[in-house]
């Protein structure tokens, strides 16, 4: 009892390590209130910096949209092409005053489809093998090798397409069928480039499916393959769709491979467009080639590039929106 009284009346500092009190803690016997809010400028600064980091990407996006939009507006207002002509004309020939986006868009679509035909099945297959079949030591060897593919500069892939894939295709299908520059070689190699991205993201999605679901399936007498196709893949679908979409976005935006291997001139609609063995110039390839030359600002050619850029932007945005709604609709939520 007496002990208790003592501890209340005596200042607490007696038994405390003095170094604690010298540091941040206010003295217990201080006359001013000791719990009052303090200013912490360091924390504020860090918070502000982190907010800046977050907003930077938002402002960059807004900036890009504004520049693309305003420059494109200049192009459409200059009277060389109406919006309808832009989407229906069969040629893209600025010198002749023809600005039809379709020839460029067709090459983008063709190379991307070829690329996804390679990347999706092979990437998904690799993911399933790595995640579900491979033994830990096999997986530990294979995964880094696969990831090296993702680190190869695209210009290297471009030359690989031109000097390896094109001769291969020409050997297989004939010199007359396959042109020296062609969409197929660029698309196939682009698929190889995208493959590790799809494989890695899909594998993450697969391994996020809880073990309890697999066990439930095995417990009912399902084989490994049945478990993968009927339980694991449906549960991981939204992640796989996200991987697919990122792959498509990379294919659509890829520049170096198509610039080197697909061709250096827009096709003519109704002629060779959409033919994978013919040459074509994608939207990105065209922007790279033209802006690399001596182009004067405020010329129609210069402004026309922004209209291509805007089309590219809208295209990937649409893909994004579609995939979001698709994955929302079909995914099996397991939590």
């Amino acid at each position: 009892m007496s002990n208790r009284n003592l501890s209340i009346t005596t200042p607490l500092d007696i038994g405390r390590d003095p170094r604690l009190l010298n540091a941040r803690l206010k003295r217990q016997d201080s006359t001013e209130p000791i719990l009052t809010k303090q200013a912490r400028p360091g924390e504020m600064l860090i918070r502000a910096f982190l907010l800046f980091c977050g907003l930077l990407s938002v402002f960059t996006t807004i900036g890009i949209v504004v520049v693309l939009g305003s420059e494109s507006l200049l192009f459409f207002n200059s009277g060389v092409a109406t919006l309808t002509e832009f989407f229906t004309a069969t040629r893209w020939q600025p010198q002749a005053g023809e600005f039809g986006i379709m020839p460029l868009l067709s090459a983008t679509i063709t190379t991307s489809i070829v690329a996804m035909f390679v990347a999706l099945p092979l990437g998904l297959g690799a993911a399933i093998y790595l995640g579900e079949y491979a033994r830990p030591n096999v997986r530990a060897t294979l995964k880094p090798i696969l990831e090296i593919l993702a680190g190869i500069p695209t210009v290297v892939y471009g030359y690989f397409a031109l000097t390896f894939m094109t001769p291969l295709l020409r050997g297989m299908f004939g010199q007359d069928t396959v042109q020296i520059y062609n969409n197929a070689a660029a698309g196939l190699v682009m698929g190889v480039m995208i493959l590790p991205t799809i494989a890695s993201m899909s594998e993450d999605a697969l391994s996020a499916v809880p073990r309890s679901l697999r066990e439930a399936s095995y417990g009912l007498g399902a084989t490994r393959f049945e478990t993968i196709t009927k339980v694991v893949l449906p549960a991981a679908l939204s992640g796989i769709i996200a991987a697919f979409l990122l792959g498509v976005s990379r294919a659509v935006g890829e520049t170096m491979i198509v610039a080197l291997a697909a061709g250096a001139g827009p096709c003519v609609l109704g002629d060779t467009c959409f033919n994978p063995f013919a040459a074509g110039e994608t939207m990105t390839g065209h922007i790279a080639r033209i802006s690399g030359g001596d182009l004067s600002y405020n010329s129609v050619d210069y402004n026309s590039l922004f209209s291509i850029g805007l089309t590219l932007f809208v295209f990937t945005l649409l893909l994004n929106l579609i995939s979001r709604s698709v994955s929302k609709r079909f995914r099996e939520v397991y939590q």
Partner: protein
Amino acid sequence: MTTNRAYAVELKDVNIYYGEKLAVKDVNLSIAHQKITAFIGPSGCGKSTVLRSINRMNDLIPGAKVEGDVVYRSQSLYGRDIDAVEVRRRIGMVFQKPNPFPKSIYDNVAYGPRLLGIRDRKVLNEIVERSLKHSFLWDEVKGDLKKSGLALSGGQQQRLCIARTIAVEPDVILMDEPCSALDPIATQAIEDLMKELVKQYTIVIVTHNMQQAQRVSDYTAFYSIRKEVETEGKEKRWGVLVEYAPTETLFNQPSHEETERYIRGEFG
């Protein structure tokens, strides 16, 4: 043929390893046909490990190895020519945490029958209805079979998992602490269900709850832990089967002191 069998599964000199580590040693146990056998014992005594060896669920864990014999219908489950998939079709499993597939109630129950190749909608409908009725879930979900299995309550989910298991009509149902994630009312429902199911199935249940073992089981196996100091500060632990007897005998006249101390709540 099945009615004359006294034992559904027999374990003979079973040792189970995870990698180099011995998990369970020297288990000899005969599981009675169409009875409920309960496995009890302190955490880490290997009762779930033994349970999972009965339908080769341990195969899924890298490094797991089973020595000795687990005999089912005079075939050793770990023999060279045994297909684990076939084993699991005869010996089904209900897990600790309810784990319905993220599919509709109907598709959950129809999953097993579909694996067996049944495509006829009419047959599937019958199986789904029968299984859900059998697991006392039908009245609660009959108007809503398209609803996701995950939208159900925990207890309903576990009954759905049982319906899913009995849809393929296995011989033996293994239950790994099926009520540990459930409230008392849901637990009661599962226990009532087990008493119904045992008329047709052999049930083995792992439980932490000794009252539950007493309430539902016909036979009880008590497992415990053995320790051995290997080197300084390093200890080897493995599980053993201490006593196996009719439930009433085990709880009222245990023949081992360790069993008696455990059921009196003195350790574990």
